[in-house]
Every structure is written in C-alpha cells, then in structure tokens.
C-alpha cells in the first residue's frame, strides 16, 4: 500500500509526475526538473517533504537521552529553537539514519527523520528511550513544506501573521520557532537541503494545501524530489540509503564533523568509531567533477591509485553544467581518478564538496 502525503491530490492536479519514493507516492517533477532546480538557485521553490517524519521527545531526561542516542552532542543546543544535524548510529558505528534535532525547551526536543527509515528509527528510538522515561511521539498529523531559494523566506512569511512573519525573518540560520495559535502551531525553521537559504515549515496536515496554494500564487515554484536530489548533491549533502547506510560509519561518508568525541560521553556507536579511528578509516568520501563528457551515476566503479572505490551519488549538475558525484574511495593522496561510465573509463577530478552554495559554484571548474 503506497503512502501519500496530505498534498498528493494537489500534486496530481498540478501535473506532477508521481513516482514511488521509499513507499511514498511523491512528485518527481511538475514538467521540468531543470527549471525547478534553477528556480531554487535563483528565486524560490517549494517542496512537499511531508513524507519525512517529525518525532517529539518529551520528558525531564530528554537531553540526557539524546546525548546517549546521537553521535553529535546536543550539549551544543543552548538557545531554544537551535537545530543540530546528527547521525544516529548502531553499536557498530553504522548510520541508522541522519536527522535534525530541534531544541524546543528542556523537556521537549523535536527530531525530523527520513521517510524510508522512519519505522525502524522509531522502534530503535523507543527502545533506547525507555530507560530514560522519555515519551516518543510520532507526528504524522503534521505536513512539512521546504521553501528554498534566495527569495524563499520573504515569500514564505506571507503565510504568517505580521508579528510572526517578523519573528520568522529574525531567525538565524539553523534556528526554528513555533508561530501561530497555541492549539495548532506551525514550526518554522531556517533549515533546508538545497544549499540555499529558506525555511522548512511543519504545520497541521489540514492546512498544508492552503499554504501550498498561497505560496504558489505568491510566485514560489512547485518543485519535485528530482530537483531536490540535484540541489542537495550540488550542496554536497548526503542522501541516506545512497551515500550512507547501516554498514557505513560517519567517518567513511564525510560526516566526521558531525561526530562529537571530545566530551567523555558514551553515545551509541562511540566504541566502534574509536576502534575504527585507531585502526585507520578504510574509506573516505570525496567529491568528483567529471572532466570528460558524460554523466556520473551511483554505483559506478571508481579506479584510484590506492585501489577501487564506488560512486554513491552522481548526477548532471544543472548549475555547473557538468557532472558531479560523491564517491567512497580508499584513502590516499591523488587528485584524479578514473570512473567506469557504461564500460568506458572517464577522468574525474577529486574535489572537496560542496560544489555549489547560495547560487554560486564553490569549486574550480
């Protein structure tokens, strides 16, 4: 049984090409994935990301629980509203999921986890939460819109009452806040998955279609998951299930910066990560820029002077008009690799992601 978001009928009415995405019927594009991509880089676009799952954690010991559960350290969340990106690891150091945690108040944190992993995440979180007496509440009653692009915030605040709009515009990056009525509040956060400024908005499912239509009437372009993928890849952001999974540690997929090891804090997976560090991390993530003509794709073989690796995500980059990829390769010092593209070895340059930020290339072409 395919799952559908509260906006499914809206997508169909707007001409979306609907595809299966981890068990969900989701819009791939509304006509042109390329135009949607450019709209986000140059102006503003809106994505339905209601397939992602908000999870509320409540209880006196919530912070202590999260310091156990997550590889990043919520001790960094000092001011209410602050968000943190983190991996949730298994005992082997493998990534169960990557998520964002918002600090609402000391007895209430909100997670947003991926759609395809939500069920296993919840089972894991509930099992881990029990000794801490933390209540775990899945918020499938909420829809989620990502409004992204240089003009996204200004357009999105048209949905809010004047005082709320002003407060939302004052949010710093990676901060969020509740706005609207206390009975059915919206949560507006200055976060995203595109490499552009913007908001992610969680709101009651029944209000999602109205908000969507008002955004579109205000000049925000509907964008599908196709553009979301090319945007996040240009921004050098990992996709769960492609660039990492339960058999990959954060140290092997470019996420070492999200693992907080300094404090003597016994989080799940820490022992495995320390052992891997001591033994030497066998694989690392790099960015690739294709120098030859063609398109890099996931699962293509990468040949390096230090041995073979694999592309984990690859695409044509609409902003760079070149092909880029994330790859997992053996450690070593080399600045060019060969990629097996449909039987031919093409040359790619090793670069440090991101490829694009705030509408501009950030690598040398």
């Amino acid at each position, binding site marked *: 049984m395919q799952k559908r978001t509260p906006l499914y009928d809206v997508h169909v009415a707007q001409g979306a090409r609907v595809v299966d995405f981890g068990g969900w019927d989701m819009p791939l594009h509304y006509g042109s994935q*390329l135009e949607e991509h450019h709209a986000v880089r140059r102006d503003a676009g809106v994505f339905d990301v209601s397939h992602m799952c908000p999870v509320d954690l409540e209880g006196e010991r919530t912070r202590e629980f999260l310091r156990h559960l997550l590889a990043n350290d919520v001790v960094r969340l000092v001011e209410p509203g602050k968000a943190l990106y983190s991996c949730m690891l298994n005992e082997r150091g493998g990534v169960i999921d990557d998520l964002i945690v918002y600090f609402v108040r000391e007895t209430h944190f909100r997670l947003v986890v991926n759609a395809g992993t939500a069920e296993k995440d919840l089972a894991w979180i509930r099992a881990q939460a029990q000794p801490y007496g933390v209540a775990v509440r899945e918020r499938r009653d909420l829809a989620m819109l990502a409004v992204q692009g240089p003009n996204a915030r200004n357009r999105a605040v048209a949905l809010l009452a004047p005082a709320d709009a002003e407060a939302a515009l004052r949010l710093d990056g990676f901060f969020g806040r509740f706005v609207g009525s206390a009975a059915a509040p919206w949560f507006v956060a200055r976060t995203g998955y595109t490499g552009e400024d913007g908001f992610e908005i969680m709101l009651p499912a029944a209000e999602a279609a109205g908000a969507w239509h008002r955004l579109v009437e205000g000049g925000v372009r509907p964008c599908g998951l196709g553009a979301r993928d090319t945007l996040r890849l240009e921004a050098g952001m990992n996709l769960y299930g492609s660039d990492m999974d339960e058999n990959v540690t954060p140290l092997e997929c470019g996420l070492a910066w999200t693992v907080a090891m300094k404090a003597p804090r016994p989080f799940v997976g820490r022992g495995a990560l320390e052992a891997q560090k001591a033994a030497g991390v066998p694989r690392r993530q790099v960015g690739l820029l294709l120098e030859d003509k063609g398109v890099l794709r996931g699962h293509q073989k990468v040949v390096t002077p230090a041995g073979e690796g694999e592309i984990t995500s690859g695409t*044509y980059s609409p902003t760079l008009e070149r092909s880029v990829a994330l790859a997992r390769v053996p450690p070593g010092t080399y600045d060019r690799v060969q990629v097996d593209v*449909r039987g031919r070895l093409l040359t790619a340059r090793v670069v440090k992601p991101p490829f694009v930020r705030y509408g501009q290339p950030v690598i040398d072409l």
Partner: protein
Amino acid sequence: MSNVPQELRYTKTHEWVKPLPDGGVLIGITDHAQHALGDLVFVEVPEAGRSVAAGEACAVVESVKAASDVYSPIPGEVLEGNAGLADAPEKINSDPYGEGWLLKLKPANAADVAALLDASAYARFLEATA
C-alpha cells in the same frame, strides 16, 4: 497525450524512423519517450560508418535522472550522428521529431522500414501500455 506524427514509423522501444528522399532514414526517440525520460542533459550519437544491427544500442540519451540506450529499429550503416545535440540535448525534449533527431542511417534493406509500426499501431501500443 503524446504527439505521434502520421508520416513516421515506430518501434515498441519508442524510437521513430523517417524515410528521406535520398533513401536514408532519420532515427530519433518519440515524444512519449522524451516525456518519460524528463529533461535530457547528455547525448551520445554513433560515428558515421558504423554498422548496426536491428535492436542494437546505437545511441545513449541521459536525462537528469538516468541513462537510456536507443536501439536501432533496423539494420544499416550510420551516415551521420546529430552533432548539434552535443551542446543542446534539450532539443530532444523541445523538438523530438525535428531538431532532436539522433542519427541518419542507410538501411540494409529498404523494405525493413515498412515492417515497423505505423502511427496508429504505435498510438494503440501507447494506449495499451499506459
């Protein structure tokens, strides 16, 4: 609804064939195919002089999302690949039966073209597989 011009011949793998007065044929992908693939970003066309068999992969079209082979509907010798697509693969999206042609072929047997699907047969095939 996909555009299926009357004067062309078609395959079930969504290529079209257009006979030319000089005995050659143009080959491309149909409107249905370009729509299903989405925005095209890279095209690889064959070199002149290459012999292709019926059903042999003779070109590659890549959309933002994926790469797809294009199969030669009939056997023959490649006369020309459409060099204009290298810098403008989007022509396949905007004009699949015109500027978006992929290759020109000299058929091994002129009669092979007539054996392909005509427009109404291809349109029925599209409806049946929709």
